[in-house]
């Protein structure tokens, strides 16, 4: 059962996801503590990305995807309730994707997009401030401050991904979902993003799907291991990577399968 513990940013239980008739997630219950980084790891096709996309209802876009279960934001908001507008949910739960997907607009417009839609800024000055601040937090400001009006697709892959993070935090979400944010980046850009995640967890709850176990151990405090749609094991990252309870987890992290 979901308890009403407000130390959790997000609580889920009895989650089932089907693609048509194929089961993708089978009875998963997982809670995400506030201002911590939780990693979801597991072999390809284990359902970790599917699960992540349930958390901001990105799966709504896919016709054949059917999500069941309880999802509570801040202990009291059922995010799948018909009273909840999916847009306001996504204002609170931002997302960064596997492949950087900046809009083909200027760098400024990319970051200002969310605040404009949600009416966060009351004046142009405030909007400028939000854009600047978001880029700062994403560690990109120094690199792009002189070319805010350049088209964002001209940035390097790592810069684009940080821009996407800036875009996500510009609307001041509570939770940021990251779907393998470094898989398309080189090691240097990856290191930058990981540093960024460490800074961001001060203010945000971060849930990250990753294929890299070293990344999971570097950035997260909690880790959940998925396999074939089941949550096999969840716990402190240190414990999962040193003394996992389940043999399956041990096999995966020592590289025996996956």
């Amino acid at each position, binding site marked *: 059962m979901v308890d009403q513990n407000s130390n959790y940013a997000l609580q889920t239980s009895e989650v089932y996801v089907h693609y048509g008739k194929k089961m993708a997630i089978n009875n998963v219950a997982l809670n995400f503590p506030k201002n911590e980084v939780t990693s979801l790891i597991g072999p390809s096709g284990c359902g970790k990305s599917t699960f992540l996309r349930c958390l901001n209802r*990105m799966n709504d876009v896919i016709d054949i995807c059917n999500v069941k279960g309880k999802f509570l934001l801040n202990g009291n908001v059922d995010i799948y309730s018909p009273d909840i507008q999916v847009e*306001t949910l996504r204002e609170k739960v931002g997302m960064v*994707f596997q492949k950087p*997907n*900046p809009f*083909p607009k200027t760098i400024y417009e990319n970051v200002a997009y*969310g605040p404009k839609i949600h009416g966060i800024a009351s004046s142009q000055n405030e909007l400028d401030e939000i854009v600047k601040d978001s880029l700062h937090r994403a560690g990109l400001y120094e690199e792009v401050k002189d070319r805010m009006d350049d088209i964002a*697709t001209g940035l390097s892959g790592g810069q684009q991904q940080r821009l996407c993070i800036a*875009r996500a935090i510009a609307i001041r979400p509570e939770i940021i979902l990251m779907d393998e944010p470094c898989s398309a980046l080189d090691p240097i850009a990856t290191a930058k993003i990981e540093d960024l995640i460490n800074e961001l967890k001060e203010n945000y709850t971060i849930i990250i799907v990753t294929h890299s176990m070293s990344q999971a151990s570097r950035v997260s405090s909690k880790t959940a291991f998925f396999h074939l749609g089941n949550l096999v094991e969840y716990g402190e990252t240190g414990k999962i990577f040193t003394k996992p309870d389940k043999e399956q987890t041990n096999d995966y992290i020592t590289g025996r399968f996956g």
Partner: protein
Amino acid sequence: MLYLSLVFVFILSYSFYFYGKKRALSLKFKKNENLSSLPDYYGYYVVLLVFFPAIIIWFFLLIFKSNFQEMFVMSPVLFPDVATWSSGKFGLIMNKISNLSIIVNLPEIDLTVGDKSILKMASESEIIAAKNLANFDKIYGWSNLTLFIILPVLLGFLATKSISGKLNAQPIVEKIISYVIKGSSYIAIFITFGIFFSLVFEAINFFRYVNFMDFFFNTAWNPNRAFVINASEGFDQEALKEAFGFVPLLTGTLLIASVAMLVAVPLGLLTAIYLAEYASSKVRDIAKPIIEILAGIPTVVYGFFAALSLAPFIKDVGEGVGLPVSAESALAAGLAMGVMIIPFVSSLSDDVIKAVPQSLREGSYAIGATKSETIKKVILPAALAGIMGSFLLAISRAIGETMIVVMAASLRANLTFNPLEPATTITTQIVTSLIGDVEFDNPKTLVAFALGLTLFVMTLILNIAAITIVKKYREKYE
């Protein structure tokens, strides 16, 4: 017979593929030779060496058939002084012989009195020549057929014989194929230039009669004035000066095309957005081909739809609200044309919108944008250049359209921007200037080429603009 021999060329050269390949394989396995190319290429090598010489000779014989015919019929044996004849006399005699050839082999009973007198008037050698001519087709055909059985077989055996392990067939085959491919594309380019220059030369002829400036800047279009002819100096220069004013045609074209675009752009674009973003894949699979049918309806059908249904309807409505509407209005033609070009806008824009990566949509949704915000602020801007390209293609189509205007708008040039009045277009005037029995060197006929050239340049510019924009769009989000 000539065409039957073509079939032989195809069949024989194809069958030599197997023979060549077999020969290569037997070299490899029976004589233990190392082949420089893959066995298939020896087959192709033989095929090409048989096919191309044979087909070139075949075309040569087809094109010069009439020359062979003349040589055969007008042989110096029958007409010893043939070399001294003028071409006029030669043609007359040739005509006579070909008339004779029709009757020369008929039985006595089928001949009319006229036929008999023609036969009587013909000389001995003319009769023989006529008989030769009557038999020529048969002789030519049979010798052709024989040639195209012997020639490919001969070439095939020679080519096969030349196969050895050292012969590297692959580069030879690939070279020949690359020439064939190159040649095909040059033909299309060559034809394009050919059309362009034929327009240019005739247009130059036109501008010999009519001043360049008069044509492009005069506001009256009365091509029939070109018939005013002064006995002493040919065309009446004053009348000619006033006959061909291009401006009303340009305004008419632009007016009708604008009406068409006013219909096609909103309907087409909204259709595209619906199909790409909102329609379920089932609806899309059915609706898209149906909409594309609109582009396949013959324009003449749109023409009578516009003339017989749309125009009277507009006239009735217009008169109902007290507006004077002509029975042949630019509006009717423009509306029908607009419906016709909807699929150009909707289908191309739909493809362009579909091509916007799904990741951009998800990125926008993930920030909490609604579907309509995403479409307005992310997808349409990303697809904008491609959408503009579709508009420009639609405009070129609208400007080039003829039949609808011929039937629904008017043939009378009218300098107006009022869509309720009749108007005419460049293409329509091209049609009217070419029909009727006016001699070809009259400016009234030649003006068609000047108009065609102008139209060609206009649509060319639009197409270049469209291609440039589409190219730019491709670079945008990758």
